């Protein structure tokens, strides 16, 4: 776009104005948002830790599931506090807390992103169908949506996990099941206004099929709300996953998981003796959700200048 051809038409005046697409403009706004940039950096570190968890742990020389009954516990069989050999201490079974935190990042963020991805995909497709076809399709989807939104999330999630058993797949699907509805509602609303635009009529007059209109014409206009909602939903699902784990309904043991670690610390009032068992997993959880939320806010502000920040110069 910016490359000037060698044989420019002689009449064309040389111009220094560079046409900026919507993405370039969004990036310019995002770059000025310091909070969002810091959040993005924190997110990048956490995601890198999750990806390179085995590498990090081999450098640290720790195994997240190794129960060091001899050196990992004190004489009374209680967990050790932070020290040179175990930087963040050990848990009730003598496992290294840092190693488990590093591995827990994989589960927490993986489940958060995966469940959000499924929820957004389902929500977008159902929202498109409801908004585009209206009529009976809309009525059915809208009612389904009302039902899902009316369910008490944690209670229903507990019931679902209890019925289908504990596994990462069930956790992801349960989280997705409770988060597609809002996406569908947002998409449906956008589609209802977009479908009246003239370019949809133009597509129809060209003979475009409904599928083509939905995915080629409408979907590109929904990219921004989808990205915004995605970035705001991931932290919600990370926390909900931690809640499930805390209630003992998360990923089966011994897999490390932040919510599960807090749950373990709660067992028998252990946290009263060993603060580090709650402090570090809880702290990482808060940091991650905070970073994701601030990043999501930053992306929203950058993509949607209509709700521009009041403080921007």
């Amino acid at each position, binding site marked *: 776009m910016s490359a000037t051809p060698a044989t420019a038409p002689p009449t064309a005046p040389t111009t220094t104005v560079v046409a900026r697409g919507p993405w370039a403009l969004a990036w310019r706004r995002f770059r000025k948002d310091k909070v969002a940039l810091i959040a993005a950096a924190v997110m990048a570190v956490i995601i890198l830790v999750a990806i390179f968890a085995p590498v990090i742990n081999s450098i640290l020389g720790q195994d997240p599931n190794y129960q060091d009954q001899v050196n990992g516990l004190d004489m009374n069989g209680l967990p050790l506090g932070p020290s040179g050999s175990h930087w963040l201490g050990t848990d009730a079974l003598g496992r290294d807390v840092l190693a488990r935190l590093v591995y827990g990042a994989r589960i927490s963020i993986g489940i958060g992103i995966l469940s959000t991805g499924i929820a957004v995909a389902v929500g977008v497709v159902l929202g498109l169908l409801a908004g585009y076809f209206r009529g009976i399709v809309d009525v059915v989807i809208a009612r389904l949506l009302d039902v899902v939104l009316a369910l008490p999330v944690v209670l229903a999630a507990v019931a679902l996990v209890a019925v289908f058993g504990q596994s990462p797949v069930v956790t992801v699907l349960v989280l997705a099941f409770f988060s597609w509805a809002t996406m569908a509602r947002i998409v449906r609303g956008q589609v209802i206004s977009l479908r009246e635009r003239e*370019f949809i009529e133009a*597509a129809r*007059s060209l*003979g475009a099929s409904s599928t083509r209109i939905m995915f080629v*014409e409408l979907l*590109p206009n929904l990219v921004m709300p989808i990205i915004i909602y995605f970035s705001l939903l991931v932290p919600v699902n990370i926390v909900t996953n931690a809640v499930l784990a805390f209630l003992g309904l998360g990923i089966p043991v011994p897999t490390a998981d932040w919510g599960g670690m807090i749950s373990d610390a709660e067992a028998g009032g252990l946290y009263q003796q060993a603060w580090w068992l709650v402090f570090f997993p809880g702290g990482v959880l808060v940091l991650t959700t905070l970073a994701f939320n601030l990043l999501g806010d930053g992306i929203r502000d950058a993509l949607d200048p209509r709700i521009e920040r009041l403080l921007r110069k």
Partner: protein
Amino acid sequence: MSSDEVLLSASGVSKRFTVGSRGLLGGRLQLSAVDNVSLEIKKGETLGLVGESGCGKSSLARCLTRLYDVDEGTITFDGRDITNLGRRQMQPLRSEMQMIFQDPYGSLNPRRRVGSIIGDALAIHGSRGKGTRRQQVQELMEIVGLNPEHYNRYPADFSGGQRQRIGIARALALKPKLIVCDEPVSALDVSIQAQVINLLQELQREFDLTYLFISHDLSVVQHISDRIAVMYLGRIVESGPVDEVFTASSHPYTRALLSAKPIADPRAAEQRDRIVLAGDLPSPISPPSGCRFHPRCPKAEQDCVTVVPTLEVFRGGGPDAQKVECLHPLEADQDLSSFTPSIADTIIGADAAATGSREVAS
């Protein structure tokens, strides 16, 4: 230029929309957008369709291209009855009739690149010409006067006139027989309007196109059309060759409409009589009885209130006949301003009373 072969014909086409929410008794109001319209478009000609905003021009265009289903009447395209064809059956015909839309901002998807917008038809119907799709699209861009290097830009990077050229290139992609231009220049600056009109005329010569040209701008229609049809409240009230209608219009509405056409010379403009019609365009939900124009017509008589006129040949014959839908058409030498509104006021009052009670009844 134009042959006598008919490309598109409509006979007795009506289109009604249901409006508003259900009333107490479940009845809903019917808006009669197009009422019993018959017209013919001959191969190679430009038929101008004029009328006020809201008179049903665009609805008629969408009926003719089967974007809307019609409630009554038949539409024949290229010798084939297309009135009841389903979406799949219409699919091959879509490539032969295209539309250019009024709003150059609304009619282009803001999130798609220009190249893919213009290439849409090729993607849907399959490429027919030589070369890759990109080459064909760039050739089209050149034909309509766009820089082919702007292939990957977004519509937002273009001005209104350029955007309308994009819309024209899109309509032209499959070399259609008929292009329906729905107010293609009314959203543009006057200087840009001229460029786009000239482009449309060049393209017509080069590709042997037939146009249905919708506009409320009389000067533009007079310039581009071979024949024109005047629409009022869903009905065609007068049609005929453009020169005859402009110089010797016989329907009082056409006469009034033409008197509103701007004249460049201020002295001439001062001398001519502006005919200002009484009242507003009546609601198509409850159109007036008899002749739909009678409440505003200075020349209306008693029978206009009860008798529905039909489009009859008024002058000349054959395909170039001037037709008018009026019980008391004006002769060329008659002056409309010499008539004084006689029954207009009373009828408008009666209509308003009738409208109030209609909702419950329907």
